[in-house]
């Protein structure tokens, strides 16, 4: 049986936020509620990477475990859905969730958060999928029922964000890792960063050894480049 998963390939994610607005577009999630977000670490430094995160549809979902009204269900595809009619907006799922997925339409005084909202894997609500206006208003569109996959992943600008059956997702990713490993071995990788800093124009930062990461310099210039790794 299919087990739906997301995987965000940080080597590809460019923090373009396409996935974030795709989700807004598809589900008309209100201002302030973001079922998906992109997080960048080491921002502005070598090694900077971004990851797009939403609900990861955990097996043994922590949100489900802590909910005082037990309003989560896991579908047979492994999608974790929650019921907005039952939800009391206590916020416990947000505390427990490893990924900060649960969102609340407000965070007003007297703990008035409104009904929790989170990524549905574009599978609508937990009730019978009917793609009704009511369902849409509460949970957004049900793409899964239409035989489609999450829009955020489908629209990802660099195909960094993968969604779907866990096996398929990991196959795609594995292939990429193999390609990259080949790249790394052939000498393309290894980011270096030096250059202009206003007050320090004349001090060349230590670079020894780095240049030799490159292939030897005496290669014939008009010789064909090394065959690309497949």
């Amino acid at each position, binding site marked *: 049986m299919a087990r739906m998963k997301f995987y965000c*390939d*940080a*080597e590809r994610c460019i*923090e373009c*936020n396409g996935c*974030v607005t795709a989700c807004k577009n598809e589900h008309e999630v209100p201002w*302030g509620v*973001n079922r998906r*977000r*992109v*997080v*960048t*670490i*080491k*921002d*502005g*430094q070598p*090694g*900077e*990477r971004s*990851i797009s*995160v939403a609900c990861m549809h955990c097996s043994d979902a*922590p949100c489900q*475990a*802590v*909910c*005082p*009204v*037990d*309003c989560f269900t896991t579908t047979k595809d492994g999608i974790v859905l929650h*019921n907005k*009619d*039952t*939800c*009391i*907006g*206590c*916020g*416990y799922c*947000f*505390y*427990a*969730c*490893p*990924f*900060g997925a649960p*969102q609340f339409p407000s*965070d*007003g*005084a*007297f*703990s*008035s958060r409104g009904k929790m909202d989170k990524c549905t894997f574009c599978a609508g609500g937990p009730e019978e999928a009917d793609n009704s206006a009511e369902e849409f208003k509460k949970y957004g569109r049900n793409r899964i029922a239409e035989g489609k996959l999450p829009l955020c992943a489908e629209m990802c600008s660099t195909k960094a964000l993968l969604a779907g059956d866990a096996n398929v997702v990991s196959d795609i990713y594995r292939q990429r*890792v*193999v390609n*990259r*490993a*080949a790249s*790394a*071995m052939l000498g393309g990788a290894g980011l270096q960063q030096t250059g202009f800093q206003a007050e320090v124009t004349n001090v060349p930062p230590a670079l020894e050894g780095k240049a030799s990461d490159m292939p030897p310099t005496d290669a014939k210039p008009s010789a064909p480049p090394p065959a690309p790794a497949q």
Partner: protein
Amino acid sequence: MDESVKNPGIDLWNAVRGREGTETGQVRSQVDSVDSTTLVNMNGQAWQQYRMDTLIPNAAIVLGLVLLAIVVFRLVRGKIPIRAGRSTHKIKRFSTFQRYVHWTTAILFVALSITGVVLLFGRYVVIPVFGAEIGGTLTWLFKSIHDYAGPAFAVALVVLVVTFIKGNLPNLSDLKWLAKGGGLFGGHASAGRYNAGEKGWYWTAAIVGAFVVVSGLVMDFPNFGQGRDTMTYYHWIHSISAVIVMAFAMGHIYMGTIAMEGAFEVMQTGYCDANWAKEHHDEWYAEMQQAGEIEEGSPLPRQVNAEASPHPNV
């Protein structure tokens, strides 16, 4: 293909999980909301374990045991009568203001306890019994009561603590009272205006209550950008102190209602039976006697008819 080639995502995820000392550097997200820059919520699991594996079972055990103890106590000791029987004299023990304050606090407390307990255990009871939809609405109602009663209780508690401080400062005779287990063994334990048990309750309510209140307020007003770590930290304080205070409260409530003849009416009317005072607060009784505060009057009725109560809304 070289086997040793590692997944290029590994460094990243190690950094994300805060392992291996990998620097995450400056972390940013354009989604600007609480904790949006936290990729993996490290404390979530700990909190989940605390709440589900520690808090809920232990709360159930503690509260259950207290209840059991009360029942056992009741069975063993039965109701504590006024041994000398009702006297014709009564003593003014609480002012009207004090009674108002007490009952306001008490009602809010009970509301908070019930609703709090529903939050804790409701999932195992309310939902199975009423179903998700009604159960959810019901729980939502309880939660809302809790959310609004909380701040009111915070105010009430402060007023209560101030109002009742007189007579609740510990003194030497409390030790004796305690040594005698409040009269359970070693014969009559004499006490002042409040005995050590009552004082204990007073101070528990004041101190542990303060923890409950402060932590509750932090959780109740999430609109100051508190992060998850803050919230779970205060939840942890709140829940533990709430269980403690509920456990004590059960004792207090038991003592104040069906445990002891003549007790409830004191808070109800403000007057206590002179004999009751003599038996339970002998030192205070003596003081009152000296001060000539013992009033003559008809014996107080055992049960005040609700209609006739001067404070029907109490």
